[in-house]
């Protein structure tokens, strides 16, 4: 009876569902501990600044390149869709609003999920399997305070900062394409940016980035701490952190878009 395929299938689904619920619970506990140790964890400001540097400076060129080409592609695509339908003088506004509302925060979130989430998970995972986290606890230094708070806080602060940078670079990428390839004047593009810029659009992107930063930091730390075994375990933790961060960034983007544009910034 136990080998009957549907029974095995039901048992598998039930086990995976319970594992999933347990995992959500463990992430919630990590977030609770982060909140509990936030103030003592921030008292060592040097470690927070160091993490901000690692996240910001370490990801700078990646964000610059991705954003530049994202803005350029947005301009090319918009110009193609505008042809014979929408006056080309609106090109700048379309690039601007699509970048600051959606492309800037989401692409920065996805890029940093790979770059930062993986590096946090790999570092903490290696510390776990080499007993460095046990060593911290043995020295009466709480790993949440010492390791998690600086990383998650730095990610929460740096994601909006990197998003602003990404927005600016992407708009510039769109400008380069508009002026050099589509034949718009510099003045028309910049005027279009000014005419349609809304502070609430920028704010919505930054609010999203704030949440994406939390997701990336928490997922990196969670999977790093959950690492078991040796090198294989570290590799697995890194992959899981990146996959979970990317999926959660996209899901939360949808949820936040609804909350922000249907309720908070509806008017």
């Amino acid at each position, binding site marked *: 009876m136990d080998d009957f395929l549907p029974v095995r299938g039901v048992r598998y689904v039930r086990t995976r569902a319970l594992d999933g619920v347990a995992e959500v619970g463990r992430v919630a506990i990590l977030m609770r501990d982060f909140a509990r140790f936030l103030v003592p964890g921030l008292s060592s400001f040097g470690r927070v600044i160091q993490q901000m540097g690692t996240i910001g400076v370490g990801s700078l060129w990646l964000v610059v390149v991705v954003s530049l080409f994202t803005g350029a592609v947005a301009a090319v695509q918009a110009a193609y869709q505008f042809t014979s339908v929408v006056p080309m003088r609106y090109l700048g506004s379309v690039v601007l609003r699509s970048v600051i509302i959606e492309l800037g925060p989401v692409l920065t979130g996805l890029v940093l999920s790979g770059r930062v989430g993986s590096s946090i998970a790999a*570092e903490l995972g*290696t*510390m776990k399997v*080499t*007993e*460095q986290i*046990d*060593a911290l*606890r*043995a*020295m*009466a*230094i*709480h790993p949440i305070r*010492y390791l998690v708070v600086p990383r998650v806080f730095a990610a929460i602060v740096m994601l909006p900062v990197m998003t602003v940078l990404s927005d600016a670079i992407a708009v510039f990428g769109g400008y380069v394409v508009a002026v050099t390839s589509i034949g718009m004047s510099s003045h028309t593009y910049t005027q279009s940016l000014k005419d349609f810029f809304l502070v609430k659009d920028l704010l919505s992107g930054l609010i999203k980035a704030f949440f994406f930063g939390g997701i990336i930091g928490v997922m990196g730390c969670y999977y790093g701490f959950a690492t078991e075994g040796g090198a294989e375990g570290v590799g697995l933790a890194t992959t899981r952190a990146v996959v979970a961060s990317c999926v959660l960034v996209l899901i939360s983007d949808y949820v936040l878009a609804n909350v922000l544009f249907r309720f908070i910034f509806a008017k």
Partner: protein
Amino acid sequence: MIRVRGLRKRLGAKQVLDGVDLDIQAGETVVVMGRSGSGKSVLLKHIIGLMTPDEGSIEVEEQEIVGMGERDLDSVRRRFGMLFQSAALFDSLTVGDNVGLGLREHLRLDDTEVRRRVAERLEWVGLAGVEAMKPASLSGGMRKRVGLARALAMDPQYILYDEPTTGLDPIMADAIDQLIRSLQKRLGVTSVVVTHDMTSAYKMADRMVMLHEGKMVFSGTPDETRAATNAVVRQFVQGSSTGPIRPL
């Protein structure tokens, strides 16, 4: 004094500790012997509160640590220093920062005093002047000694050593044994050493205990250990593959 009573711990399908009783008197050096995987390191991690037992009690100076909150546990842990099997040095920190981490985190000392204490501890372990080096550039023996300097940094009452000589060549292993012994004499700390290296064990121990199949099967002085009639202890001490302990 540390008092362990009825300690049980199951990891997966294996009953690693199965009712362990152990008393460690102040100032003595107890060596815990046993085969690889016999639960020696698990016992050590219970004593410092890194693992929670399924059953049993652990008292440190008459304070029960099983079930203790993390904050209270931290105040107990500050009386301990621990040398991990792999030294567990923090890769991202220099040697100086590794040794000084506890001082910086727990004591409000100025930087000059921290550096002075770090230099002193490193000198004790024969590694003066290596503060700026990164753990990755150290040899196995140097890593162990830095780990020992870190364990000594906070002037602990108790030091736990997890396989202090494993993976070292015999000359370096002897140097580490001598170092541990001289520090114990100089500082008068209570030490628990986990090892399966009998040469080291005889040199360091005031008392030797043996953990086998989750239970303490022997306790005695090094001379009593050499003369033990218990078949399990005799086989282990002699390093023989024939006897009650099955090698595979």
